[in-house]
């Protein structure tokens, strides 16, 4: 029972983290029809900037603000100078250019902060455990869940209740029509890109105390993010939310329960050998199954 509660919480924590990444990526894709492989680099930059500010000032709140501001600024600069030219081009060009950016970002980070990983400590206020469902759980991890859910609520309000959100929805539906109606679509694009970048930066910062902050740390999470938006339906923010929770749940649960289940079925050595192997493949198999039956994803954007 206690293991179960902890695993569910862990999977929700991974889920909200994936949502922070996939919300931005799916919005950018939905509106600009653009795949940004360097989205993981923004995650990495958020973690690095946050870690540095936290170490300098000792304030985690300042670290959050700095990480979001830095990644948004970086997003705006890169969007205005380079990525904007790629919106109208082939997806292949977009992938290769953002791949080039990703290589550059990794090396710049390595140049500025050095090759060895950075570690930041959990803020003192959250450095304990809390009791939840009769179970001790690290307070910081629980805070990530709360922060993530707050972002989900905020994003929901932004998209469904504000003028900017209305334009984002309209842009995702038919960008050229929105432009024809006199909306500055270039500004809208930049705003969406900055929003996505900020969310990725926030995600990177939130996870920073739990992992080692190092060059290339954004790439594994980028791949999971791609799986999330494929499962959820590309361009759909609702899909990104449910997709993130599903992937988080399966990825976490598979690693734990697959092992336990297989150990009962097979002898110890076999179970230990194939358990992690199957667990690591499970979300990709899920993705293949989803695509085979619903190529548009589970929660596709409704057009027209």
């Amino acid at each position, binding site marked *: 029972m206690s293991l179960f509660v902890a695993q569910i919480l862990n999977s929700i924590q991974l889920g909200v983290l994936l949502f922070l990444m996939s919300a931005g990526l799916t919005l950018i*894709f939905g509106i600009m*029809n653009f*795949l940004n492989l360097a989205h993981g680099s923004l995650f990495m930059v958020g973690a690095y900037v946050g870690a540095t500010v936290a170490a300098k000032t000792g304030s985690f709140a300042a670290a959050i603000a700095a990480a979001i501001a830095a990644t948004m600024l970086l997003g705006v600069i890169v969007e205005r100078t*380079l990525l904007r*030219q790629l919106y109208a081009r082939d*997806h*292949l*060009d977009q*992938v*290769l*250019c953002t*791949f*080039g*950016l*990703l*290589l*550059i970002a*990794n*090396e*710049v980070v*390595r*140049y500025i902060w050095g090759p060895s990983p950075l570690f930041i400590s959990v803020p003192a206020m959250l450095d304990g455990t809390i009791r939840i469902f009769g179970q001790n759980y690290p307070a910081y991890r629980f805070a990530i869940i709360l922060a993530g859910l707050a972002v989900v609520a905020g994003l929901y309000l932004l998209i469904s209740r504000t003028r900017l959100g209305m334009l984002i929805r309209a842009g995702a539906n038919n960008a050229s029509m929105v432009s024809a109606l006199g909306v500055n679509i270039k500004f809208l694009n930049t705003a969406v890109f900055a929003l996505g970048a900020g969310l990725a930066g926030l995600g990177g910062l939130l996870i920073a105390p739990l992992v080692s902050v190092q060059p290339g740390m954004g*790439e594994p999470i980028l*791949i999971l993010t*791609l*799986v999330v*938006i*494929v499962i959820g339906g*590309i361009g759909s923010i609702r899909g990104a939310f449910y997709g993130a929770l599903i992937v988080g749940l399966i990825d976490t649960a598979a690693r734990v329960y697959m092992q336990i289940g297989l150990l009962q079925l097979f002898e110890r050595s076999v179970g230990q*050998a194939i358990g*992690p*192997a199957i667990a*690591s*493949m499970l979300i*990709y*198999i899920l*993705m*293949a199954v989803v*695509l*085979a039956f619903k*190529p548009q994803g589970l929660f596709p954007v409704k057009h027209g």
Partner: protein
Amino acid sequence: MAKLEIRRLNTWVAGLIILLLAAVPVVATAIGAPFYIAQYSRIMIYALAAVGLNLVLGFGGMTSLGHALYIGIGAYSVGILEFHGLTNGWLQLLAALAVGGVFALAIGAVVVRLKGMTFIMITLAFAQMGYFLAITLRTYGGEDGRAIGTRSQMYLFDFSNPIVLYYVIFACLAGTLWWVNRSITSRFGMVIRGSKSNERRMLALGFPTFRYKLVAYVISAQVCVVAGFLLANLTQYASPSFMQWIVSAELIIMVILGGMFTVFGPVVGALAFLLLEEWLSNFRSATFPAFGELVNEHWLAVLGVFVIVVVLTARNGVYGYVCRRGGGQ
């Protein structure tokens, strides 16, 4: 569209490069620099993989960002079977092609229906699946990979002799080029290229494009499996890093750099890309030693800039440019 007729200049260029590649072991032995043999063996292996990838990328319009998976399958077939004492190279190759075929059929059946961005993301995700699977194989070295003690025993060909291995790789590359060159103008190739430019029209004409594209995908994957098999024999190593997504991206860059709509372009691209990589990672500057060191340390960033510049300015690639100059379109 692809240039079908044999044009003078590009045929000359391609022929010259083939001849130069054929001469590498002779020259390297003569000047007493045998490391060139290994270096150019590696380049030709990636060229082989890039030519295979180009079958779906350039001619089929399917942007696969996951072909490194098949290189990994080829390499691990050698590594795993050797671990269990099976060193017969023909059996290893057979096993590699069988496993690669099953994977390519299964993945291909899911992906070839998809288009554009989804295709890119799914192929990438499947390749990552293979990568993480390889990492969990602790028996076979896990994250570090595994050194292969004995190279594949091919009987007729002695792989422990680098010159023999070189010419086997050369023959595989030349054979594949010859086959691709023939097949893109065949009925099969025409259907593939037709469904790239307008799939609906091909369907209306009555071609089962799904089957054709699936076959193209499987063949393209199998070329990469062979490349992986050769790579394991060259490096005597099977490692998850062979199927990192970086490798898949590099293969695409080789294809683009050389010229995506040409048969021979990927070979030029692989040569240019890997020689540049080699040059950058050993970069020295006599006048500005600090600058040389900086480039040397962060050469991947220079590569990143190079990739962006190539994509933004030189869409037809180096060899594609030669084709254009030679043929004039």
